[in-house]
């Protein structure tokens, strides 16, 4: 120790010998190069000398006491009342990498130990000042160690009264509490983290001391229940009261059973919070027995699983809704009369309705998941398979009506593709198909019958016409010639009455012949048989003009003789012409009619065009007038067609095309 020369001389009491066991030495031992030194041989002596006063330092140089102090790891320092370090022990200095000389004589707070914090410097300075005023203090502070960084110190400063009880020195001690402090910090942090984890997990915990009937909750559990820890005192009864009525009995019975068996327990229960909101909690815990084997306490943790529960509940609701919708759809599909089959992209059965099962004579169980083509190999290569594959490939609905040989039935099918597969609706249309075929056959029979009737009528007409012509006509002609002969014989010699009567007879004969001729021609134009169709058309045109006053032109590009038309076909065309002219006379209001007959290859074409008022499109589209139907039927009977074209104000044209060589008439 060095006492600087400009400072007042220090009176030093030097204690020598072993006095440690016999009393307390107040003060720190040290050495000085200046001042008065008094030596004491023992502690007792030193104490007496010390009490006598006048010493600044007690020095026990080279003594065991000094050795012990120096070896103590705790810091012990002696300061002047203004904070100058007078002496310290050695070990803390060594540990801090300092020499005693670096420390003694300097202000304590100026040491590098306090260079890290102005606050700590101030606290130390304050503590020394207070000690100088007689006030002890103890607090925790930090110092900066060159070797160990921040070191936590349990520091104490106390006044050191002199012999006259005035405070002349301050004693400071410091113990390194870093390790303990770090452990404490770690523990605190770990507790905080645990609490945070509990909070994040919404995991609360509780303990029920059954013997004292005392329940304690973790903060998080209070949060879960939305209760104020300061105002709510948890108890088993108050807990049960918060449990949802529907879950209360179950919760109580689980706990009762666990207590009876001293076992672990787990239960889910809903609670109602003060604001009325419901939370779902998952609780696990166990019953702890005391040394006597009886229930001592229950500990448990509560997990707020409301979010998951609600998510599950919603998912379940959604699933049920979807299921219900699917059931409803399947129910509807079950009831539809159409067969319905759903298959996936590989054409594996997914669903069949009742109608489909009936038609296919299979149950769902034997088909679901199976390939269509495996279960019904007879469909392979059928039009239906192609339609399915096409619908899948093109993702376009397909419709087909097809005969399925193996079942001997007609089916109408609609195939709707989707990315999941195919929805196939089908109906057994065998009866419908048969009805249609029967209808078609019936229509054909009807047409044949009509044609036959027409033929018969023509035959009858022809026969009557011939009778009229050959019998009546010839007879009348003969009568006329004979009458003329008779009149010639009696000419001049007959009485006037007779002559008048003969003239009247002649006139009547002419009229009757005319009538006969007309009836005969109407029934059957002999000209058609005698001279062929072109001549008959020309004759008919002239007759029409004469009868109606409408100009009727006829242009035929067929030779009169050797007409290639079969007689029956020629007759049909002639009858169609007559019908067409009847229509013109009745409806057209025409001034002029043009009749044309040409042969185009194997087809004879008859056209009748007027310049009348035409036909309105809506009337034209019906085309159901009997006259028109009759013409059409005639054309059809000879393998031909009839086309009617008309425009309002621009006349009407009927065009008939028939094969020159009629299949029937040969």
């Amino acid at each position: 120790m060095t006492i600087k020369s400009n400072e007042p001389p220090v009176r030093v009491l030097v204690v020598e010998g072993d006095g440690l066991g016999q009393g307390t030495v107040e003060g720190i031992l040290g050495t000085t190069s200046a001042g008065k030194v008094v030596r004491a041989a023992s502690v007792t002596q030193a104490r007496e000398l010390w009490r006598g006063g006048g010493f600044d330092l007690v020095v026990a140089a080279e003594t065991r006491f000094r050795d012990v102090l120096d070896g103590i790891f705790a810091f012990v320092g002696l300061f002047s009342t203004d904070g100058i370090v007078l002496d310290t022990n050695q070990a803390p200095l060594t540990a801090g990498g300092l020499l005693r000389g670096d420390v003694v004589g300097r202000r304590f707070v100026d040491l590098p130990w306090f260079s890290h914090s102005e606050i700590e410097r101030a606290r130390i300075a304050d503590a020394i000042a207070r000690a100088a005023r007689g006030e002890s203090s103890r607090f925790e502070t930090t110092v900066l160690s060159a070797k160990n960084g921040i070191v936590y110190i349990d520091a104490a400063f106390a006044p050191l009264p002199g012999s006259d009880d005035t405070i002349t020195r301050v004693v400071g001690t410091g113990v390194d509490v870093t390790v303990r402090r770090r452990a404490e910090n770690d523990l605190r942090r770990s507790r905080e983290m645990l609490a945070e984890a509990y909070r994040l997990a919404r995991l609360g915990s509780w303990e029920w001391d059954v013997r004292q009937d005392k329940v304690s909750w973790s903060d998080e559990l209070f949060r879960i229940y939305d209760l104020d820890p300061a105002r709510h005192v948890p108890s088993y009864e108050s807990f049960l009261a918060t449990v949802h009525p529907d879950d209360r009995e179950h919760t109580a019975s689980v706990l009762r059973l666990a207590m009876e068996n001293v076992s672990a327990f787990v239960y889910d229960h809903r609670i109602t919070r003060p604001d009325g909101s419901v939370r779902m909690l998952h609780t696990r815990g166990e019953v702890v027995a005391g040394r006597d084997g009886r229930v001592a306490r229950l500990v448990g943790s509560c997990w707020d699983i409301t979010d998951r529960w609600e998510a599950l509940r919603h998912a379940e609701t959604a699933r049920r809704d979807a299921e219900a919708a699917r059931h409803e759809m399947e129910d509807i599909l079950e009831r539809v009369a159409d067969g319905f089959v759903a298959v996936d992209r590989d054409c594996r059965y997914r669903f069949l309705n009742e109608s489909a099962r009936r038609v296919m004579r299979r149950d769902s169980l034997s088909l679901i998941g199976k390939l269509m083509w495996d279960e019904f190999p007879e469909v392979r290569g059928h039009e239906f398979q192609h339609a399915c594959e096409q619908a899948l490939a093109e993702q376009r609905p397909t419709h087909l009506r097809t005969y399925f040989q193996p079942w001997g039935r007609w089916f109408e099918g609609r195939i709707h593709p989707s990315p999941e597969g195919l929805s196939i609706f089908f109906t057994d249309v065998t009866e419908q198909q048969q009805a249609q075929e029967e209808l078609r056959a019936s229509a054909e029979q009807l047409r044949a019958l009509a044609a036959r009737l027409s033929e018969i009528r023509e035959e009858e007409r022809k026969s009557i016409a011939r009778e009229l012509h050959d019998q009546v006509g010839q007879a009348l002609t003969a009568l006329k010639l004979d009458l003329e002969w008779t009149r010639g014989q009696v000419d001049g010699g007959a009485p006037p009455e007779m002559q008048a009567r003969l003239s009247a007879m002649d006139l009547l004969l002419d009229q009757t012949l005319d009538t006969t001729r007309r009836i005969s021609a109407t029934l059957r134009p002999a000209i058609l048989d005698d001279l062929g169709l072109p001549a008959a058309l020309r004759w008919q045109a002239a007759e029409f003009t004469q009868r109606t006053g409408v100009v009727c032109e006829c242009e035929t590009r067929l030779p009169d003789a050797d007409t290639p038309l079969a007689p029956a076909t020629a007759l049909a065309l002639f009858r169609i012409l007559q019908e067409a002219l009847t229509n013109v006379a009745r409806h057209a209001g025409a001034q002029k009619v043009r009749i044309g007959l040409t042969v185009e290859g194997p087809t004879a074409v008859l056209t009748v065009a007027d310049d009348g008022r035409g036909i309105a499109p809506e009337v034209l589209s019906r085309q159901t007038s009997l006259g028109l139907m009759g013409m059409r039927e005639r054309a059809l009977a000879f393998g031909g067609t009839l086309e009617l074209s008309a425009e309002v104000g621009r006349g009407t044209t009927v065009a008939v095309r028939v094969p020159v060589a009629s299949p029937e008439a040969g």
Partner: protein
Amino acid sequence: MKRILVVDDSVALRGSVCALLAEEFPEAIVGEAAAAVPAFALIAEERWDLVLLDLSLPDRGGVETLRDLRTLRPGLPVIVMSLHAETEYRAAIRAAGAVDYISKGSSAKSIAATIRAALGEA
């Protein structure tokens, strides 16, 4: 002496025509046939100056018969008789080779005139 063949299936009409011919052409020889086939037989066997042909024969078509007659005896004039109105018939009948056409119901005088013209006696 003219030879006239009347071809008609009506007995009454043939009788009347023959009576008319006897009246108008007393010197003529009149033959009768009731159908086409016997008529052809007569024409093939004998000479005729004129044929009065009805178009409505029971065995063959009148126009066809007319055409065949023209082929068999190109120089033999044929007058067609028919009950039908002559307007439309005349052209067709002429085209088929008939020299003329008599509509039945015409007066005896006009018939005689037509025959006379055909015989070149007018």
